[in-house]
């Protein structure tokens, strides 16, 4: 593997030194481009109380291309599909090399607070979110309890 760019080293250092509240990202022991991420469900959201595991990978041409991020913990959310893939503009066309792991994880946290069923990835969830929001939120709470709360 090629040597780690200065950007990744520095970014990792800063991430460890000044962690973001509610977000925990730790590089893998064997692969400095792979991060184990934990995002706590934002208060006043149906994901409150949940601890969500994600994986984050910095591709070879990072930061020219966006990090790859995926939820590992099952989550009931209109912009996150069954495989945990996330529909988020900053991970796609709105990616800028001036963005960082930190800003991406903050965006994901914000997505949990404000789901956007008009730009869906999980169609059935988005559909219910639009037709019957109360029911959808109830499902999201149940999933959070079932999959994201440690015993």
């Amino acid at each position: 593997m090629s040597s780690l760019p200065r950007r990744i080293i520095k970014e990792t250092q800063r991430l460890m030194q000044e962690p973001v509240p509610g977000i925990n990202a730790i590089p893998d022991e064997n692969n400095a481009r792979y991060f184990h991420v934990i995002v706590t469900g934002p208060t006043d959201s149906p994901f409150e109380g949940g601890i969500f595991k994600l994986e984050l990978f910095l591709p070879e041409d990072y930061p020219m291309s966006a990090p790859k991020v995926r939820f590992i913990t099952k989550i009931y959310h209109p912009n996150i599909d069954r495989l945990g893939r996330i529909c988020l503009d900053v991970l796609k066309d709105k990616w800028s090399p001036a963005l960082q792991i930190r800003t991406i994880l903050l965006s994901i946290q914000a997505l949990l607070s404000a789901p956007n069923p008009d730009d869906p990835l999980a169609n059935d969830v988005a559909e219910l979110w639009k037709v019957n929001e109360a029911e959808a939120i109830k499902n999201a709470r149940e999933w959070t309890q079932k999959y994201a709360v440690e015993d």
Partner: protein
Amino acid sequence: MDSDEDSFEMDSGNVSSGDDDDFAMDVMDEIPPSHERQAESDEYHYEVLTTDEIVQHQREIIDEVKGVIKLQPTVTRILLNHFKWDKEKLLEKYFDGNTDEFFRGAHVINPFNKPANTNKNKNSKANTAEECEICFSQLPSDSMAGLECGHRFCLNCWREYLTTKIVTEGLGQSISCAAHGCDILVDDVTVMKLVHDGRVRVKYQQLITNSFVECNQLLRWCPSIDCTYAIKVSYVESRPVRCKCGHKFCFVCGENWHDPVKCRWLKKWIKKCDDDSETSNWIAANTKECPKCNVTIEKDGGCNHMICKNQNCKHDFCWVCLGSWEPHGSSWYNCNRYDEDEAKAARDAQEKFRSSLARYLHYYNRYMNHMQSLKFENKLYASVKRKMEEMQQHNMSWIEVQFLKKAVDILCQCRQTLMYTYVFAYYLKKNNQSMIFEDNQKDLESATETLSEYLERDITSENLADIKQKVQDKYRYCEKRCTVLLDHVHEGYEKDWWEYLE
């Protein structure tokens, strides 16, 4: 060499010694058929541009606008691109509106607000180190660069960023600043300053030339594969244009020239034909599933008594009502349960579907038939060329046998017109005029098929003068019928005769 020249001289000698009357007539024949002549000479001017000429043309437009609004050529280019290279629209918006809004909309910093820019503040701290937000390096100010928006990154990061956008994402004119959320566009001079790799620069030039042609309404690339010419018109109209490569197409939609059908119906038709569901619909109409085991069964004869081909099933059923065969008794050819309500409803629905499908297939088959025949165009030209050579050996001059090539030209043209008449007819609602159209279509169709037969015949073995007369009469007739048909449709467009089904 010498002998070649000799034989050439001999040939040309033949030409000049040919019958004068015949010569005149054949020259007349070289003029395009009248409907085409009309369309092409009807004051529709266009130019065929090479890539260099396109770049030159682009520069001229920029200079012209720059002369009026007195801005940098780089800014002018971005503005023009934003207005799809419509300079009138750009100038109109520039002079009648809010300038801030005008520049914001085009994703450029208003150059008249420049002094207030943060850029200046940053420049004032010359020689102090700045951190590049992309690579996190501390660098002296002269290693950093940015657009008018003031977002600065190091030269290496810019280079890498632009290269990724150009090579990986194929972006040209629409590359924005590398800062998150900043939509200010990177101008071409900045790109050329920052990117040094020759291949990337060439690719960038291609991309901006391409976006110039693609978003400029008055330009269109020739759709022919590997052709790099573009057509430039002075106003947009559905007209035939011929590229220098020989390809003739509709300027508006880029399809082969498709008179008499209009672009929008042709587009709809092509989409319909491409749509796989039509094919599967055809299968659905010609096959049924065994009501018991769901194996697909194709009806292969007149008998309605179907026996499932699945050896483990062998279910007996009626093709007409899909009911079990048993109650049908001994009526092997007729379904005597025809009037049962349930069966009737199912049949009505299927009937409706089938008749619309049959209608589609009727037009589709004729359309495809002409398209297939046109695909053999080259083969036909080759065989006619052979015949022409044979005829020249039978004491006919070069100019005397040109009528054969002419006949093929007209044949292909009639086929192409006919092909598109079926698209036109498919969407046409029946009325008195549509019936006249169908008669014209029928006439042209049969004349064209006769001409086609003549050309496939063994011409040399017959009386040459005779066959020449026959072929010429026939292609003149075809040409006339083609003109009559097209004129009638055009008249209908003018007088609003045509009503459409969808």
